[in-house]
């Protein structure tokens, strides 16, 4: 059956108008209620994970090859540097061993309850938010691999963000630079607390700084553990600028090009508000409060 051009144009107009209205409604609903689309987002993320994983391999392989090439070129210089560093670290190892022994003794004396067992999952970033107005990455590990909401996402050097949404085989990490990210932090070595607030720029800002103290460029920032989402003492970054509007922090981790991430479970994940019964939460906390070395789940 042939549809007349006039009829076709009318159908086109109606359908486009209708769909634009639906999309606009989605924008408003999505802005008003961030959770409303969570289920949909998780399902789409799970469904697309294998395709994203495959598509991200060439870039990852290229990156690895470039790294190797760079390694060949700088092998001599690296070797000299590493030998020096090794020497220095051996000295630190002695210090660490002495402190560790002393710490154990003091904990014993003080009858301190051991920290919960730490376990982690290593995951690869397979998706990067393709927009100027959000900062998050998708990683190729999900609930099936032991990832849970609220876990800390780290690189070797510092905090990257937290697990915000979990599908069965993929998870979304909200970076500390995202507009919606708020992390309670403390200036290392002091008791000065603040909130590290992302604003989509490369350097999140310090807000609600305790009055009375001053923040200087070069101050190291770590998580304070307040609010219970992150454990205290995770390295975050250094203060890079201080001006009349406040201080900004340069994260240790290279957030603009995240590659492999460690999703660390400190046994605190259940303290994020979610629809879990209080009694169930308390039970789980007691259960996970067993000391031990970090275990690799994957």
């Amino acid at each position: 059956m042939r549809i007349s051009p006039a009829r076709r144009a009318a159908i086109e107009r109606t359908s486009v108008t209708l769909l634009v209205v639906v999309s606009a409604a989605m924008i408003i609903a999505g802005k008003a209620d961030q959770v409303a689309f969570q289920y949909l987002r998780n399902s789409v993320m799970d469904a697309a994970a294998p395709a994203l994983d495959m598509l991200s391999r060439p870039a990852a392989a290229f990156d690895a090859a470039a790294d190797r090439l760079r390694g060949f070129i700088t092998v001599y210089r690296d070797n000299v540097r590493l030998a020096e560093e090794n020497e220095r670290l051996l000295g630190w190892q002695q210090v660490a061993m002495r402190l560790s022994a002393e710490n154990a003794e003091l904990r014993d004396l003080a009858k301190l309850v051991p920290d919960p067992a730490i376990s982690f999952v290593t995951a690869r970033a397979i998706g990067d938010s393709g927009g100027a107005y959000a900062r998050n990455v998708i990683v190729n590990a999900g609930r099936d691999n032991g990832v849970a909401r609220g876990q800390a996402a780290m690189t070797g050097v510092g905090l990257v963000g937290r697990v915000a949404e979990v599908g069965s085989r993929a998870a979304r990490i909200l970076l500390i630079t995202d507009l919606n990210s708020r992390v309670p932090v403390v200036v290392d070595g002091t008791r000065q607390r603040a909130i590290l607030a992302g604003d989509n720029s490369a350097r999140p800002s310090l807000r609600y700084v305790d009055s009375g103290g001053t923040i200087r460029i070069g101050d190291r920032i770590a998580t304070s553990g307040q609010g219970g989402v992150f454990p205290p003492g995770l390295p975050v970054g250094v203060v890079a600028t201080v001006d009349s509007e406040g201080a900004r922090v340069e994260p240790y981790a290279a957030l603009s090009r995240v590659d492999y991430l460690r999703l660390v479970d400190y046994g605190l994940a259940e303290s994020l508000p979610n629809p879990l019964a209080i009694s169930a939460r308390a039970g789980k906390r007691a259960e996970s409060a067993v000391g031990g070395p970090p275990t690799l789940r994957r």
Partner: protein
Amino acid sequence: MINVLPIATTVLAALLSIEPLHLDSYAVLTPAFTLMATYHWTIYRPDFLPAPSLFLIGTIQDLLSGGLPGETAVTLLLARAIVLPQRHYLVAQPFPFIWAGFTLLTGGAILFSWALHSLLAEELLDLRGPVLRTVLTISAFPIASFLLGRSQRALIGAD
């Protein structure tokens, strides 16, 4: 085969736009690949990339990127509504004209997105990222257009 090509390539564009490329700040500046595919196919084969497919692909891209759901869908649908009446004129034009048309469309689309986010954030957001993104999108269009045109011709030959 030719009738699934427009949808398939636009879906691929949506997935590509959230691929991490391990480049500094690439996530912020990722070219608007879906807009390229939408523009190309709306000129050459709008019947095989109908409005509902644009709505679905745009929505999927927004859900995956963690952005505002509906934003890309609105952008792609408006792009179609603007380009479709001009396609009989555009289809006969040499490539520089098509490219110029895309330049206007991209400028409009990215300005729209910036205005929308500024409105929702209730402050004027930084324009540097969006401007760079516009430049990258416009610069990448000839490559995308070439690849899409080649795949289109290859499949016409195969059918």
